[in-house]
C-alpha cells in the first residue's frame, strides 16, 4: 500500500479543511431545513388537531343538545300522557256513572211512557211488522229480519253524552 509523503499531508490540508467546511455547511443547512420542516409539520399538525378538536367539540355539543332536547321532550311527553290518561279515566268514570244512573230510570214513574215512546219509534223506523222486546238493561230492542234497533237505556245514555259537546269540559278540566 502506498502512503502519501509527509509533504503531501501539508498540501492537502486546505482541501480537507474546505471539504469539512462544505460538509459542515451542508449538514447545517440540512439541520436547519429539517428544523424548519419539523416546525412546519408541528404547526400544521397543531392546526389540524385544533380543527379536529373544534369539530369534535361542535359535534359533541350538538349531540349533547340533541340528547338533552330528546330527554326533555320524552319527559314532557310522559307528563302530558299522565294528564291525558287521567282525563281518559274521568271520561270512563263518567260513562260508567251515566250507565248506572240510566239503569235506575226503570224505577222512575215516567218509565212506562218512555217505553211506549221508544216502542213507537222502533215501529216507525223498522215498520209495523217489527217485533219489539224489552231490553234487559231497560228500554226496548226492535227487530225486523236482519235489521235491529237497540234503544236500551245505557245505549241512549251514551248517545246523549256524545251529543253534548259541552260535556267535554267535565274531563278536560
Amino acid at each position, binding site marked *: 500500500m502506498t502512503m502519501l509523503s509527509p509533504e503531501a499531508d501539508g498540501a492537502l490540508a486546505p482541501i480537507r479543511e474546505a471539504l469539512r467546511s462544505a460538509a459542515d455547511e451542508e449538514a447545517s443547512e440540512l439541520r436547519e431545513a429539517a428544523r424548519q420542516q419539523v416546525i412546519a409539520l408541528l404547526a400544521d399538525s397543531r392546526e389540524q388537531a385544533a380543527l379536529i378538536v373544534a369539530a369534535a367539540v361542535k359535534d359533541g355539543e350538538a349531540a349533547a343538545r340533541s340528547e338533552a332536547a330528546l330527554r326533555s321532550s*320524552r319527559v314532557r311527553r310522559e307528563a302530558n300522557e299522565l294528564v*291525558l290518561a287521567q282525563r281518559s279515566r274521568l271520561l270512563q268514570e263518567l260513562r260508567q256513572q251515566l250507565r248506572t244512573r240510566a239503569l235506575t230510570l226503570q224505577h222512575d214513574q215516567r218509565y212506562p211512557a218512555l217505553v211506549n215512546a221508544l216502542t213507537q219509534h222502533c215501529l216507525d223506523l223498522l215498520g209495523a211488522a217489527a217485533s219489539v222486546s224489552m231490553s234487559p238493561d231497560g228500554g226496548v230492542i226492535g227487530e225486523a229480519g236482519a235489521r235491529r234497533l237497540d234503544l236500551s237505556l245505557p245505549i241512549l245514555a251514551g248517545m246523549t253524552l*256524545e251529543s253534548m259537546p259541552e260535556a267535554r269540559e267535565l274531563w278536560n278540566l
Partner: protein
Amino acid sequence: MMDLRGASPGQGEAAAPAPAVRFAPQVSHGDIRELRGPLLVVGGVHGVGWDEFATVDMARGECRHGLVLEVDHDLATLQVLESTDGMSLEGIRIRFDGRPLHVQVGTEWLGRVCNGRGEPLDGGPPVTGTATLPVSGWPLNPVYRDPPQEPVLTGISVIDGLATLVRGQKLPIFSVPGLPHLTLATQIAAQATAGGQTFRVVFAAMGLTHADIAYVRDRLEERSAGGELTLLLNAADDPVIERILTPRIALTIAEHLAYTEGHDVLVIMSDMTSYAEAVREVSAARREIPARRGYPGYLYSDLATLYERCGRVKGRDGSVTIVPVLTMPGGDITHPVPDLTGYITEGQIVLSQDVAARGIYPPVDVLSSLSRLMRSGAGKGRTREDHLDVAAQVLAALARARQATELAELVGEAALSETDRSYIKYRTLVEEGLFDQGRDEVRSLADTLDRAWAALAALPKQELTMLSTALLEKYLPKGDDGE
C-alpha cells in the same frame, strides 16, 4: 259577515253542529254474507251510499269501523278499517252513519297524537271539537280564493334562500328511498314560522314504519308539547283504507284552524307515494279498471282534491300551506305519483343522491328545485330587498360552477382559467357554507342571505351580473385588500 255558503271550507260549521245529528239512533244490520280479506259484505241494506262510514259492532262488545266501497242492489261491501282479524259471520252487526266520515274539529287537536283515523294514541280521551265537518272538505268557490302571499320561513337555508315557501302554497318534496326526506320534513314541521302570525302544524304520516313514527314523535315533541302541532300517524301495517282518510282528516283539521281560528297552518303529508299505493289497492278491491302502472285513472283528480285544499280565503286571516313528501320509486320522476303531483303543485324541492353522497344535508338539488310562487313571498317588503337577486345569482353561478367542474374533470383544474377556478371555489363555499346545515339547526333569513353573499364573494365582481351596484356595495363582503 261575508256569506260563503257553498263556497267556504268553514261554511258548514255554523249551520249544523253535527253532534246533535249523531244522536239519531242507528238501525243495525246483521245479514253478514261474506268476510273476504279486509272486506265485509252485508245484505238487506237500503239507502246506503258509497264512502258512507259505518260502525261494526262485534259480539263481545268490541267496536270496529268501516267504509262502504261498493253498493250493489241490497248488498254493501265495506272495508273494515281495523281489519277483519278475529271476526266471524255470526254476531256482527253494522250500523251505517248515513254520511261519509265526519270529524269534530277545533283547537283540542293541538298537542294531540292520533292514529290515521283520528283516534288517540297518546292515552287521552277522544278528541272533541266545536264543530263536526266532513273529511272530504267543502268545495271552495275559486273567486273566494286569495293568491298565496308572504313567506313561511323554515329556518333551512336552501329552502328559505332559494325556493321560498309561501303562505297558502303547495310545495312538494321529491325524494327517493334512503334519503333523509323524513328528517327534512320533520325539521320543517319543527321550525317553520310565518312572521308574526300564530303558526300551527298538522303532520300526517302515512305508511311509515314504527321506527320512523318514533323518530317523528321525538323530533316534533317540543312543538307538540307547546300546543302548536297535531300528529296523525298511520303506520305501514295499518289498514290501507285508513291511509286514504289520514290526509283528509289532517286537511279538515287544518282548514278549521286556518279559516275559523285564524292561524297559519302548515300541513306536512309524508309519504304521498304510500298514500297513492293505498288508493291503488282500494281501487283494485273495487274492481275498477287500472290505468298507468295499476293506479286508477282518477289518481290525478284524487290528488288534486287534497292539494287544492291549501290556500287563503278572502275575508279570513289564516292560510293552509301544504308540503307533501313523495318518494319516487327507483328515482323515476316520470312515475305517476310525482308526475301527477307536479301538474298540480307550485314547484318542487328535489332531493338528490349525488348531493347526499357529498355529505350535504339537506341533499337538495337546487338546480332542479323551484318555488313557483317565490316572488309572492320574497323580496323587498316581504323578506329582504336583495333576496330575489341573490337567489338568482347563486343559482346562475352554481350552474356555471357545475360546468367548470365538469371541464376540470376532463382537462384538470390547472388548465382552467382563473375565473373558472373561482367558480369551483365558489361551489365548495356555497355547498359548505350555505347548503349544508345541521339537522336541528335553525337559521335566520338574514344569516342565510349573508352566507350566500359570503360564497358569492369568491367570484370576480364582474361575474356578479345579476346584482346591482347598490346591492354589491351594501352586502358584498369586502376582501382583506378592501376589494
